[in-house]
């Protein structure tokens, strides 16, 4: 029967399926940068470059106190789109305009670092790779394209820092189907330099991504610190509960 044949074919494929690749552009690991200076630098980059089009409607400006900024610093350096430090981070751009200009309304970035997690990597990995893989593509309305999210509506906002790049692609015939061609990415070609070196740009992006990750869950630092105390407390409780239980049960024959 057809069903049995299919079954045998599938069972033979199982080992391959388990290790099958997710596909898509491989994600770079976002460097761990959770110190206050990095987060503050990330916040500055975020407010200056992202907040023009994106909002962070679940993020109040004064929450930035958690990464070591004072209300005064927030007010004088970062408060562009609001009047009071207690307000949430809104964007000046109206969603209807955004839709008309870019074809899609820019998503709210409050929890974007959590939303972009997948089996391919953490949300931070995704954002770190995404922000560094824009390239010049004249076929796109914005003149930009992206390796992680092909045909993305967003232009390369940080291009002045990174400069203009194009990917180097090698055309090969598909090993499974020789009539088809596949394009393999082999590296980048710098068309014109940016204001930053490649290393400095990676560091700046890492700071921005660290900020986005922090903003997605400002409580995560407290959470991890408190967790250790709770687990120590519960270990003691578990030990006492175990001894108490033993002391009762040893009388049973």
């Amino acid at each position: 029967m057809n069903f049995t044949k299919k079954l045998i074919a599938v069972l033979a494929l199982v080992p391959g399926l388990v290790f099958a690749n997710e596909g898509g552009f491989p994600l770079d690991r976002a460097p761990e940068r959770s110190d206050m200076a990095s987060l503050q630098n990330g916040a500055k980059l975020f407010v200056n470059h992202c907040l023009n089009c994106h909002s962070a409607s679940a993020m109040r400006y004064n929450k930035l106190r958690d990464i070591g900024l004072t209300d005064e610093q927030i007010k004088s350096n970062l408060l562009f789109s609001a009047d009071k430090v207690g307000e949430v981070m809104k964007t000046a751009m109206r969603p209807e305009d955004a839709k008309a200009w870019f074809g899609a309304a820019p998503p709210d970035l409050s929890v974007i670092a959590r939303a972009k997690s997948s089996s391919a990597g953490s949300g931070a990995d995704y954002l770190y790779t995404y922000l560094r893989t824009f390239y010049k593509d004249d076929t796109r309305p914005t003149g930009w394209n992206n390796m992680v999210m092909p045909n993305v509506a967003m232009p390369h906002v940080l291009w002045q820092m990174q400069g203009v790049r194009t990917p180097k692609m090698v055309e090969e015939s598909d090993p499974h189907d020789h009539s088809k061609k596949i394009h393999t990415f082999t590296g980048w070609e710098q068309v014109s330099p940016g204001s930053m070196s490649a290393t400095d740009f990676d560091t700046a992006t890492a700071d921005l991504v660290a900020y986005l990750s922090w903003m997605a869950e400002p409580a995560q630092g407290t959470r991890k610190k408190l967790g250790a105390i709770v687990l120590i407390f519960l270990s003691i409780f578990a030990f006492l509960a175990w001894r108490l239980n033993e002391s009762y049960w040893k009388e049973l024959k």
Partner: protein
Amino acid sequence: MGAAFKETKLPADAPAGHKALAWVDDRFPLSKLWNDQWGKYYAPKNFNIWYLFGSLAMLILVLQIVTGIFLTMHYKPDAALAFNSVELTIMRDVPWGWLVRYMHSTGASAFFIVVYLHMTRGLLYGSYRKPRELIWVFGFAIFLCLMAEAFFGYLLPWGQMSYWGAQVIVNLFGAIPVIGPDLSLWIRGDYVVSDATLNRFFAFHVIALPLVLLGLVAAHLIALHEVGSNNPDGIEVKDHIGPDGHPLDAIPSHPYYTTKDLFGVSMFLLIFTAVIFYAPEMGGYFLEYNNFVPANSMQTPAHIAPTWYFTPFYSVLRATTADFMYVLMAAIALYVVFVWFKSRLSFKAKAAVAAIALVLIIGMLPQVLDAKFWGVVLFGSSVVIIGLLPWLDHSPVRSIRYRPNWHMWVYVLFGLSFVALGYLGTQLPTPAYTLISQVCTLLYFSFFLLMPWWSAAGRFKPVPTRVTFHPH
């Protein structure tokens, strides 16, 4: 009319607590209730680790209700406000709101883990066998109620997965012939999942189902304490009564199982809090990544998967493709032949089985009802069939300990199919995955439908008269 009311007289120098208790006991059976349900409830002394999950389920129920009350104080059941009432108000503005939210979201998954383990215990030791059928039926109703509770609650954060998960499940009702489309419209209160749906799901989640759940838990416990607990040996401890009138192999729950459960609680809390503080998303299984994107009715996600605890049943639904209908029709025909020759049912009963099978097979023809409808039927049946276990198991012994060794492999195969279905339900369907889930679906149903025969087959081991107990 009972006896005339008589106030209990305690000596004047008796402690105030004793006097107060006597005063209450004269008016309300407080001590009696405590002693019947726990204090002097005699339970077999050979309980093992499997017997911790009932009290743990109770603990989680209380945790869910308490954390739920605090979440309700800050949550807004309004399509325009719901997402940020969670992400802004609860997760950032409310002091410790994030902790309460993680306790509640992790609690939902923990509830299902504990309940699945609790049900596995029942399966291994035959805890649903006579006279404990109703305990199982009440427990099964709790499981149904829990699934509904989780489903309604999952819409509330109003993320993409909340929204589209609800959309998919409500649309299933649309597959019912004639009334389907109107029924799903009635459930949603709108043509798509919307503010109206969110409001009613909120009402179900915070009041309707918790009330039913509490009532069912009470019924489950009263039934248990009426007939007494089963045990890993699957024998009746009440067959050997000691001089004190209590079973020789049973001990009062308090203090012995109070302390044992307390130790179980401490171990559970260690794992539970480790998840809350270090992996609240649990790799996207407890909090799905796509649910951090606000609900958008204009943008269908590429991959809609229900939360992990529904995926075994969801896989059964997805496995029911048009091709698979012919396999099902053949399986039903085979089953009728099997029943006809192997069962001891009366001729009338056999004829009824054959007639029902004929109706099913005709209904499965592509010209009659489509595969989507049968997918929903199988999805429902895969849940409901669990409730029928007390009448499907014909084993002469209750516990797996005294069953033929190969029975264990039947359970293992069933367990693997269930886990495989669960895993496949979280993945995007591919032709290969669909085929594996079809095989697992057949294994899943065979386990139950063939149980009357396989559970009675083989060489059973001698059952001891007294429980196996190793003193500490």
